[in-house]
């Protein structure tokens, strides 16, 4: 018996239908990848070819995108203060590591930071002058002596977080206040240890990054940089555009002048948006770089 043309045509159609059903089942698992731009070029072609002929999958894709947008827009729930305090207390109580667990490099970097802050205090806010380095060098030698090292390692008395007094608010604008507080902290204490090799999205001449760390600004994580500029230490913070534009006063100033400026107790603040972030720069008044000299990297 030979296959009639009609039988062959039906068989082909059945094969096509089976193939379609197999594709349809397989590709459903790829739809999230398509919605999220996580597919390879080859996968994209396969999904798009299928989508052009499958309304169910098109609807599913559209619903996924709606769900994603809706969840992404939902406000973050902040940790209640009581929870923060409980966690801080538990961490304070958690076992510390003995001095033998401390790596030597951590002790040395601590000593160096102590040194910097000592020199800072002595020379009234200028970071390190020429003669300052001489003092620093001699202090460093003293600090390396065995008796001093031992006392530092076994008797470090840091601040108990639970007993920290709330600081006085300096600005009505939460993100500006957060940055001012951080600036005061780096003036009074040692700089935090360099966290990772984050790069700044803006730059200006004669700027050297001394340290980089993450900080909380306006309720969200932000990247902070301590930058030496003309013998001053300036704080530069980079935040998300969403946080940056939250405040009406900042928005209006930026709309009018391209930049927001304010002053608090001889400290100057400059805030400006870039393509990808909001930049806030804080330093002694009249010592910040000129707006026109600040260039997007």
């Amino acid at each position: 018996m030979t296959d009639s043309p009609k039988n062959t045509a039906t068989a082909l159609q059945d094969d096509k239908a089976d193939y379609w059903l197999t594709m349809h089942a397989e590709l459903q698992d790829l739809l999230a990848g398509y919605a999220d731009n996580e597919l390879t070029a080859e996968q994209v072609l396969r999904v798009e070819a299928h989508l052009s002929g499958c309304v169910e999958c098109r609807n599913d894709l559209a619903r996924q995108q709606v769900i994603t947008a809706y969840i992404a827009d939902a406000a973050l729930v902040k940790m209640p203060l009581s929870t923060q305090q409980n966690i801080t207390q538990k961490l304070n109580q958690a076992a510390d590591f003995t001095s033998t667990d401390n790596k030597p490099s951590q002790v040395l970097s601590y000593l160096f930071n102590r040194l910097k802050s000592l020199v800072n205090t002595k020379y009234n806010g200028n970071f390190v002058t020429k003669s300052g380095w001489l003092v620093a060098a001699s202090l460093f030698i003293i600090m390396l002596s065995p008796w001093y090292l031992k006392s530092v390692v076994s008797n470090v008395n840091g601040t108990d977080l639970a007993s920290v007094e709330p600081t006085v608010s300096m600005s009505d604008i939460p993100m500006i206040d957060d940055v001012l507080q951080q600036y005061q902290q780096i003036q009074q204490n040692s700089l935090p240890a360099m966290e990772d090799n984050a790069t700044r999205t803006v730059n200006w001449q004669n700027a050297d990054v001394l340290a980089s760390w993450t900080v909380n600004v306006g309720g969200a994580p932000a990247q902070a940089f301590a930058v030496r500029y003309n013998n001053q230490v300036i704080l530069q913070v980079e935040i998300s555009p969403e946080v940056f534009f939250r405040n009406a006063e900042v928005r209006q100033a930026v709309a009018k002048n391209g930049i927001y400026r304010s002053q608090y107790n001889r400290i100057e603040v400059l805030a400006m948006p870039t393509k990808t972030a909001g930049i806030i720069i804080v330093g002694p008044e009249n010592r910040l770089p000129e707006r026109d000299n600040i260039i997007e990297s």
Partner: protein
Amino acid sequence: MTILKQQFIQLTEPWWHRLYNIALQHTGNAATAEDWTQETLLRAWKDFAKLQERVATYAWLLKILDRVIIDDKRRSSRRNQIAPVIMVDDEILHGHACSTAGPFKQMLEQQQQGKLNEAIQQLPDDFRSVVLLRDVEGFSYKEIAEILSVAQGTVMSRLSRGRRLLAHNLLKTTSDTKKNTPQIDSPHTNNQKTLD
């Protein structure tokens, strides 16, 4: 407090709120969320001195949170084990009046506040984890795979199925399941066009 502990708190503190937010989205219960966040940070502190290399702080904390939740659920046998596989042509997804993009979006916006959160909490644990890491936190599939110690393909299929199940459950609880006219485009109808 030692320098090491100060460094630990300095490094992690910017992420505490977000960590708590994710924990709360998992459980819906503030006390449980606090317990999980606390346990995560205590375990992270224990690991901190041994951390040899620089890690992405938040991803590291989320990895620990994932283990804290699994351990807690294992202890109390409260795991959502069943992961039903809903296909795109499921009856509710196919037939509901709000199943296309516009009406679906409108339905979401008109829902009582917290309905979506409830629906997320009712997802199977595996689905919920990927949905939160992707749609709340915006991690890439590669990063999610590292946080949860699964393959990227697994992240993708769990996301597809998780979001689909979410849509299914949200539509199920919404009234008005008017049936649509038969769908076009599948090979079964031999490309005969009908009006929508």
